[in-house]
């Protein structure tokens, strides 16, 4: 090591980029860390994330299908109950995965493993960390969605090539939830507060036209559910699964695009207050 210190060593040059204090264009280092950590983690845990929605599809499709029979599909045509719930389960799985990764996982790494503390003492900015973590969550989500779509195919629930779009659409849904989830987690201080996330997720899972059509509810309740993101996700995937597209398809997609933009703004703003206050 040289002991000579020159003047320019002691005088740094700053750049004035947009978000310069939050972002150093190095999210890939965070992604690299995540992939390396995955190697040492339990692969069965990874696989199990894929198994859960498949179990739901098999059990509910066969068992409940026997009780329910056929229901009305997006185009008005009758479809098997299994074909009705499959896209809904995929949307739920995209939501669950993204929310888990961006809330509990982030909460743990932030408060217990102190992982982000170490990262933020380097030249990384908080936005590098956020983008890296969201990318990892979406990568995992895309893998699960591919597997689930394959299972749908094996069960004879896919009748149109449009169904391949289920995969990117699931990623879109996951992105919407993940970008918001991280911002919301930044407000959380204790495990008890984290539990409240479940209180929102559970009714959304059960009420968003996942297992039965929205027409069951009075109009006012329908409006509330139609304002929630999961319903748009379920409807979007349900339309794709049978290849029936309407003006509503564009609304569903737009809903998630807006959600991603607002979520990223929220997350970035929160990171600024949290880490640079």
């Amino acid at each position, binding site marked *: 090591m040289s002991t000579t210190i020159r003047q320019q*060593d002691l005088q740094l040059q700053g750049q004035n980029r947009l978000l310069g204090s939050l972002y150093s264009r190095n999210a890939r280092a965070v992604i690299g860390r995540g992939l390396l*950590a995955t190697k040492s983690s339990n692969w069965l845990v990874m696989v199990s994330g894929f198994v859960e929605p498949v179990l739901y599809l098999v059990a509910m499709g066969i068992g409940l299908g026997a009780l329910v029979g056929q229901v009305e599909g997006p185009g008005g045509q009758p479809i098997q109950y299994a074909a009705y719930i499959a896209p809904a389960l995929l949307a739920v799985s995209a939501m669950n995965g993204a929310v888990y990764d961006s809330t509990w996982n982030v909460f743990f790494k932030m408060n217990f493993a102190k992982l982000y503390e170490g990262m933020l003492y380097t030249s990384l900015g908080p936005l590098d960390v956020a983008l890296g973590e969201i990318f990892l969550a979406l990568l995992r989500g895309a893998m699960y969605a591919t597997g689930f779509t394959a299972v749908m195919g094996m069960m004879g629930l896919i009748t149109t090539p449009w169904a391949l779009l289920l995969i990117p659409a699931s990623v879109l849904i996951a992105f919407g939830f993940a970008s918001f989830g991280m911002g919301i987690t930044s407000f959380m201080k204790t495990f008890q507060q984290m539990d409240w996330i479940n209180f929102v997720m559970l009714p959304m899972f059960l009420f968003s036209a996942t297992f039965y059509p929205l027409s069951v509810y009075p109009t006012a309740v329908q409006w509330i559910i139609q304002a929630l993101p999961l319903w748009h996700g379920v409807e979007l995937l349900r339309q794709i699964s049978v290849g029936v597209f309407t003006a509503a398809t564009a609304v569903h997609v737009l809903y998630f695009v807006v959600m991603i933009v607002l979520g990223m703004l929220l997350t970035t703003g929160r990171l600024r207050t949290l880490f640079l206050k």
Partner: protein
Amino acid sequence: MHTNVSTKSVISARNLTKAYGEFKAVDDISFEVPAGESFGLLGPNGAGKSTAMRMIGGVSGRTLGELDIMGLDPEQHGPEVRAHLGVVPQQDNLDEDLKVRDNLIVYGRYFGLPLSYLRPKADELLEFAQLSDRAGAKVDALSGGMKRRLTIARSLINDPKILLLDEPTTGLDPQARHTLWDRLFRLKEAGVTLILTTHYMDEAEQLCDRLIVVDSGSIMAEGSPSSLIKQYSTREVLELRFGAERNAAMAGRLEGVGERLEALPDRVLIYTNDGESALEEVTGAGLHPITSLVRRASLEDVFLRLTGRSLIE
């Protein structure tokens, strides 16, 4: 080309203040750290040391004041400033999901360093931290001292010019502390600027060229360890214990012995330049402490003098 750098500050803080609502964690402190110096922040728990460290590290903003790290404001140019720092936080935050060597490599990636540099560098640092034989081990399996050394090795992955150490040896056994001090000394010899917080006097005396004594967010005194002792204490200290209930009463009867007297709940301290003769004076007066000890004055006494209380409570 070579300029006189001894007067050039790498860190300059002016009227630095950090308030959380009414509470001021750091209250209007100013200091300069020249390149290559080993600079200490000394104070009890909650004095504001770690907050000051986080501000220097560019991960905590300030309420008031100015902060300049190598010519840049860490709040505006966080990534650029942090790229030149090595940070050893108070609590190890190693990545438990990764192996020992991977911890170093992955951390280096955060600085955008290439693998061709990081692989040999990681091995070099493992050598430095005496952890070469543990390269493939899980972080979980390391002892406290090993984790601390790994955290320090990690902080050096980017060849930092400034190393921030927040209580580097708290919680370590004496042997592990000495090993660490030796490593830090080598870094200092290599020209790295060390900024460290501690509440151990011996550590400050061993490692710091200059230090500030901080209490309740303010600077109480500033100087080299020896100059602080000279300024705020006598050469020797006589410690007397009369038993918990009698210390205060005895202190009254000891007036006049030595230059100054401090009655603590558990003992009485007499500041004097000649401890042995002070002790003779005490026994000559017919007082018989349960134990007595003559020692050299330390920074602990400086702190006691300045704040009226002990450093580690």
